[in-house]
């Protein structure tokens, strides 16, 4: 078995009577960016949470670095950014970064350099000493992303990282994501911005608790005979073009 960053096999997840994930299969290889797209409520966040071990699968399995999740120790190799900005409002940006760096178990000597680097990537260097409660929505999103980037994790799991971020900054973030890919690290990303879905290596289209399609953007466009991933999305959902 070749080494994979994430491997989901016949993943099933239920909340009460509702079966949110019916049969999810896909893999993320090292050095790959995989985009999860699908309508709201399709179960993208649920896939991520099950992969991280915050929810337990009712069937099938989720493995990260070929080890079955949930697994606490593996979490130190994963950078996670949730869909909601989970930040401590009464602390400054710097203090938030510091706290999560300590939680991730970063070495003392490298912490300050790490914080400076991730702040640079999300363009927050000058605002680090402000309280997070006084940040704008986009600034919070960026700080949240910076926390996920801390410690150069081998796998990044980002739940809508670019919501509320302006185009210039979004471009800068994608530049960073590409750098990460070149370092042979992997990224699983969800997004509702279809331009971004064009930039990933493979797209997983989630619909009705299943992976409708899993292929490169180019192959998907060919398969659906359309010009953009947005049209692929709409066509798969059955919207008349």
């Amino acid at each position, binding site marked *: 078995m070749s080494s994979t960053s994430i491997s989901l096999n016949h993943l099933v997840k239920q909340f009460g009577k509702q079966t949110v994930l019916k049969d999810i299969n896909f893999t993320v290889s090292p050095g790959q960016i995989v985009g999860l797209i699908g309508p709201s409520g399709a179960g993208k966040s649920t896939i991520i949470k099950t992969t*991280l*071990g*915050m*929810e*337990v699968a009712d069937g099938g399995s989720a493995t990260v670095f070929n080890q079955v999740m*949930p*697994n*606490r*120790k593996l*979490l*130190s190799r*994963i950078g*996670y950014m*949730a869909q*909601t*900005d*989970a*930040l*401590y409002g*009464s*602390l400054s940006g710097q*203090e938030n970064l510091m*706290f*999560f760096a*300590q*939680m*991730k*178990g970063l070495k003392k000597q490298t912490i300050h350099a790490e914080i400076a680097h991730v702040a640079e990537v999300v363009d927050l260097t000058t605002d680090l000493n402000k309280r997070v409660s006084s940040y704008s929505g986009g600034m919070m999103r960026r700080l949240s992303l910076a*926390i996920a980037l801390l410690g150069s994790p081998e796998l990044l799991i980002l739940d809508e990282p670019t919501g509320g971020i302006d185009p210039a900054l979004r471009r800068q973030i994608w530049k960073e994501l590409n750098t990460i890919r070149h370092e042979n690290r992997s990224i699983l990303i969800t997004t509702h911005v279809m331009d971004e879905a064009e930039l990933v290596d493979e797209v997983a289209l989630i619909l009705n608790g299943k992976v409708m399609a899993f292929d490169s953007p180019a192959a998907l466009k060919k398969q659906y005979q359309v010009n953009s991933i947005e049209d692929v999305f709409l066509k798969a959902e059955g919207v008349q073009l």
Partner: protein
Amino acid sequence: MRIIAIMIRVLKELLRDKRTLALMFLAPILILFLMNAIFSSNSTTNVTIGTVSLSQAMNKKLGKGNHVDVKLYDSKTAAEKALKKTHIDAIIQKKHNDYILTHANTDSTKTTAVKMAVKNALTARGTAELKTGLKTSTTVIGKLRHQLTITSKALAKLQFQVAKSTNQKVKTSKSNHVTLAQVSSKKMATPKITNHYVYGDANTSFFDKMLPILMGFFVFFFVFLISGMALLKERTSGTLDRLLATPVKRYEIVFGYMASYGILAIFQTVLIVLVTVWLLGAEVVGSLFSIILINLLLALVALAFGILLSTFASSEFQMMQFIPLVVIPQIFFSGIIPLDQMASWIKTISYIVPIKYSGDAVTAIMMRGAGLSSLGLEITVLFGFLIVLTVLNIMGLKRYRKV
């Protein structure tokens, strides 16, 4: 160390929340001042009086009083032992013609009740003696009448004094020694009552009895509420999920919270104790350190309780709903209201109330100077609460991360 990082973070958040801090530190002081002003009156309670070398008649008369039990002791040392162990509330000893009262005085209601009982018993006896005394003295007075016409005014005065002294035998003063009646005639030496206090003085009030329980209540209430809210916020804002997406261990989160709120509780306890001792003039017989230690233990129980209950609440308002359910009933069972005469099931409930144990322990330290070693039961029970709740919390975090 992740525990320390969490502790520092929680403390930072708390220190920046000025309003909550003010509430935690100023509200107890304000309430203590108000309570001190309000509580000076008392209600009836049962008292047990130990007597040493008292006449049978006197013992009987004492026992006749409402809510009074009499226990006879052979020696003063035996009675003093019983007093220390709180089997009895006061000792009466007869010396020559005088009575010496020693009050435990940990409960001013009881002290007052004892004084009343003794006063009543003596009045009953005094009037009997007066009657016989008067019979003999009428003849004497008849003889004297013509001989000492000038002194008749003085005699009237003397009679007035006798009357006054029998009616008003108990008079207290700050000196702790009260001479209640002067010898009014050669034949009739009214007994002198001297009051001694094991704790405090004649000014010890209901407030002093409430103090240890109130102290525990403040610590419990604020730590319970604020920590519960903090964890709730951590959960609803998603930071708990984010925290659990790092390799942090579940017990590190719980212990980090314990460390920060423990520190807070120490400051709060010190402040409350200093205010009550310096500004309100309360007396602390035992060591302050022991009081702080007990309150720290209670704070940790409150913290664990707050964290546990916060998992059953989905908003701050729901957290508030636990106050009348969990916090307020604790006051009733804490010992502020004497439970001796109540139904046994009520007493049983009081055994599962943490504030009762801290209240008992701090009362013993403050009023009787008890050391920590003699408070084994209370400390063990509090530790028991703490361990069980902490384990439940660490397990409960599994709901948010399966490992």
